[in-house]
């Protein structure tokens, strides 16, 4: 028969297994969310989705070391894919723990909330593994669309809805720009395949069509990675979104965005490095300065973390700019470190939001060193790590990035990283000072501020009405302490992280 001749591509199910785990998990979780009993929805659903993330990590460990093209070269399974997937899957598990007893999944229905989380992670997997312009875009949308919804899951809080809408509009502009850029790249090189683009790139290096394509692609990806000057959405969206979702966005989206940055620029556009690297270096420098300066005046911890994430994106971009294996490893290493520091910080923010009724205002952590030393310690390690103080993993991460910058003849960018860190001290130290050096705010004041942050009564916003208020839940403690401890331990014994990061760097065999 003629129909039988149209054969589908060979599918390597082993290589695809982490993706299958995430998408399969999303389906199962969505169905489980339909069951009647409350304990299924509130207990089993989060557990199942955490299990799906864990399965994706486990299957990733199983596949670590394999290098193969999947689905007719649309996806690339290698160490870079696997190691970056560790980062966003761990971020997913952390976000699930923080979301477990929070408002957002209750209002959006547990099944949907967790299914969206898993789908978004599946999109990240596709994005990082993408080896073709079409899969790149597919992954990006699969990542973004669930996130737009997740931002708005606290449906009765205006800020959350605003955040979702803002993210949707700006994210769509970013996606459109990226798509336009990809079309130009395709037009110039005649292929959508990364390897094909790399082969064709030599011939079209000076072609304005190609350069426009690269420029638009940079802009599109810069939106996703919150690289200045395309970062303006970040503070508003981070602040408005439910805090567990913010935590997920901060660590996981960042990891995926840098995964694709690394593969697309250092593999597909590698031969044209001289064209885009200087521009990207300038963007990185601008991002570092803008992010750090923007964070200085913030009183909302979530906004502060948002600006800090902009600055950190600038640091990580350095590894992309230099286009060496060392650079790739340094960026991947920093992504892991960034995960620890951010999850620890966000866990403390969540804990204090539920405990004080001050929202995410910096006043919520005042006097924390005296009242909750363990939480204060986790936050301290996170802040010191983000500032790059020794004995934290953040220091080693920055060391590695500067090392890569100097090695790749971008010494000036290494110095910009250092200058950025200096500026960042101002606001990270403010948080430390609030925790250890100032007394706790008066309770009367606390109620007043909580009224000012304006959670409407429907959402159970006032201090008296909110049943979650007044205690810190075990899982939030666990996230804060676990990731705080990781920040410290990997600052002293960084070798395991280095092993993974070097493997990820070695996966891009075309680099020096």
């Amino acid at each position, binding site marked *: 028969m003629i129909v039988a001749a149209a054969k589908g591509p060979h599918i390597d199910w082993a290589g695809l297994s982490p993706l299958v785990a995430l998408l399969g998990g999303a389906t199962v979780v969505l169905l489980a969310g339909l069951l009647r009993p409350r304990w299924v929805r509130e207990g089993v659903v989060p557990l199942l989705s955490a299990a799906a993330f864990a399965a994706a990590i486990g299957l990733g460990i199983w596949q670590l070391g394999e290098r193969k093209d999947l689905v007719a070269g649309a996806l690339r399974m290698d160490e870079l894919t696997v190691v970056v997937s560790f980062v966003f899957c761990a971020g997913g598990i952390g976000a699930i723990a923080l979301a477990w007893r929070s408002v957002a999944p209750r209002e959006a229905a547990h099944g949907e909330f967790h299914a969206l989380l898993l789908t978004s992670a599946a999109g990240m997997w596709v994005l990082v593994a993408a080896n073709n312009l079409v899969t790149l875009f597919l992954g990006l949308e699969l990542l973004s669309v669930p996130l737009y919804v997740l931002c708005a899951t606290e449906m009765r809080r205006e800020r959350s809805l605003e955040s979702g809408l803002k993210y949707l509009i700006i994210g769509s502009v970013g996606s459109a720009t990226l798509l336009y850029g990809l079309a130009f790249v395709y037009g110039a090189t005649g292929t959508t395949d990364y390897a094909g683009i790399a082969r064709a790139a030599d011939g079209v290096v000076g072609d304005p069509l190609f350069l426009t394509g690269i420029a638009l692609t940079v802009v599109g990806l810069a939106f996703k990675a919150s690289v200045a000057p395309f970062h303006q959405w970040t503070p508003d969206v981070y602040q408005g979104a439910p805090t567990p979702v913010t935590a997920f966005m901060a660590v996981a989206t960042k990891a995926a965005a840098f995964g694709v940055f690394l593969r697309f620029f250092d593999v597909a556009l590698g031969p044209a490095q001289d064209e885009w690297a200087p521009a990207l270096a300038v963007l990185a420098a601008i991002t570092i300065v803008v992010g750090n300066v923007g964070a200085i005046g913030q009183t909302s911890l979530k906004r502060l973390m948002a600006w800090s994430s902009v600055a950190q994106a600038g640091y990580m971009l350095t590894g992309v700019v230099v286009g060496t294996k060392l650079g790739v490893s340094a960026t991947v290493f920093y992504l892991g470190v960034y995960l620890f520091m951010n999850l620890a910080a966000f866990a403390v923010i969540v804990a204090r939001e539920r405990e004080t009724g001050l929202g995410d205002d910096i006043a919520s952590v005042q006097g924390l060193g005296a009242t909750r030393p363990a939480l204060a310690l986790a936050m301290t390690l996170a802040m010191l790590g983000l500032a790059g103080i020794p004995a934290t993993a953040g*220091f080693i991460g920055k*060391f590695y990035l*500067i090392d890569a910058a100097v090695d790749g003849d971008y*010494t000036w960018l290494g110095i910009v990283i250092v200058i950025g860190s200096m500026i960042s*001290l*101002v606001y990270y*130290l403010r948080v430390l*000072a609030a925790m250890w*050096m100032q007394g706790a705010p008066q309770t009367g004041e606390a109620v007043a501020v909580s009224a000012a942050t304006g959670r409407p009564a429907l959402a159970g916003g006032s201090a008296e009405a909110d049943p979650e208020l007044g205690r810190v839940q075990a899982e939030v403690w666990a996230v804060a302490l676990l990731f705080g401890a990781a920040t410290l331990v990997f600052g002293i014994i960084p070798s395991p992280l280095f092993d993974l990061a070097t493997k990820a760097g070695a996966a891009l065999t075309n680099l020096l």
Partner: protein
Amino acid sequence: VTVHLSILLWLPLASAVVGLVLPDVIGRFAVLAGAIAALVVAVIVVARFDTHAQGLQFVTDRMWISELGVHYKLGVDGLNLFLILLTAVIFLAGILWASLREWRQSRLFFFWWGLAESAVLGALMAQDLALFVVFFDLMLVPFLFLAGGWGGPNRIAGILKLFIYTLVGSLLMLSAAIATGVLAPVEGIDFSLSTLSQAAPRLSSGTQEWIFLFFAAAFLVKMPAFPVHGWMPDGYKSMPLPVLAVFSAVLSKVAAYGFLRIVLPLYPDASAHFQDLMLLIALASILYGSAMAFTTTDARLILGYSSVAQLGFITLGIFSLRDAGAQGALLQAVNHGLVVAPAFLIVALLAARVGGSEDLRDMGGLAFRAPVLATLFLIVALANLAMPGSSNFVGEFYILLGTFQSKAAIAVVAFTGVALASVYTLRLFIRSMHNRVGPHAVSREISVADGLVLAPLVALIIAFALYPQIALSKGERSVTRSIAAARQAAEPAQEAAR
């Protein structure tokens, strides 16, 4: 049995961690025991030190981060031997002094002390450039928390200033250190100082120069030296006095030591190139520090500015690029640490006798019923002004001798600093201990417990006055080797100038 420097390094921190989990009442004694044990190990190291051996002794060398070529390498030679001993002594005195007093959240308070001691010892013993940077930055963190948690009324502004100033320097140093490791012509990447001291001097002079400036920024801020001392008044005021005593006595020495250990051997061409600049900065620090010290009335700041001047002398000695000058600088580093720590502790006693004020105008007449306190203070004061017969005199003499050999004009101006030192030190002593009795001053003898902390420090000052050659002779070889390359680089230039 060989002495493991790792034991010395981690003892204080380990005891601090133990103290953190013990009940409040016993916690501090764990840290105290750790400090005593560290001093015992340090004394054993000094006793076992072979003066005639070449190079490092008691070396521990393991790979820490192989991907970055960072070693966990510790070692002792003539440069750091006595600074390690000084650190152990001063920390023990500080911890003992603090443990005689009550502090809120005392377990945490003493934990930071232990971490601070380990970090300072680490910076002094590190024989790997990256490891040095790690400890150099780390040693600031416990002081941030000590000052911020237990300091004076305007502490937050003060420590922010202190922390940002010093970390700006430290971060510049970090990038310079990484650049050294990456750019130095070695196989692969290696941060160990023994490798870099061969390779780094071969860096081009342009590279050496910016790296030198970044390192100098870190060290000069930490000292502090004249144009970058802006954090000092507020920073000093933000710290509790026993903390400040240790901070001023030990941390500034690590900076001076950094020049001898890292900057001069690794970047000799740049050191020679910037010799004049560094000498002028040193001279400015001496004059400015002295002038400020005899105009301010805050006892704490008098000692602070006097430290600026003293560190100016130490810098002067190092950058004279002469054996005598550098040896004098190293001796003076130990001397200054031994003198300034008891001086700050005495200021704490004085303040307690005039109702908490540290202003000279509120003091006076405090010697009347306190002959022991007055005697201890007098010995400290005479040592601080470098009275002939004191070890400080020997140190300053060598420094000026070295400077005279290389730049006579600068030495002449620096001599005035010696005279000014007696003015501000005697002014501090006379206006607090003698003169008319202050409005709220109550003369009271020093308590036995406090006396037992101060007396050994004063005894050490006297011992050093009698035998300064102990430190000089053990340091001689290492100092000569440390400045040899820079001296060689500077001399042709001077020949040509003549």
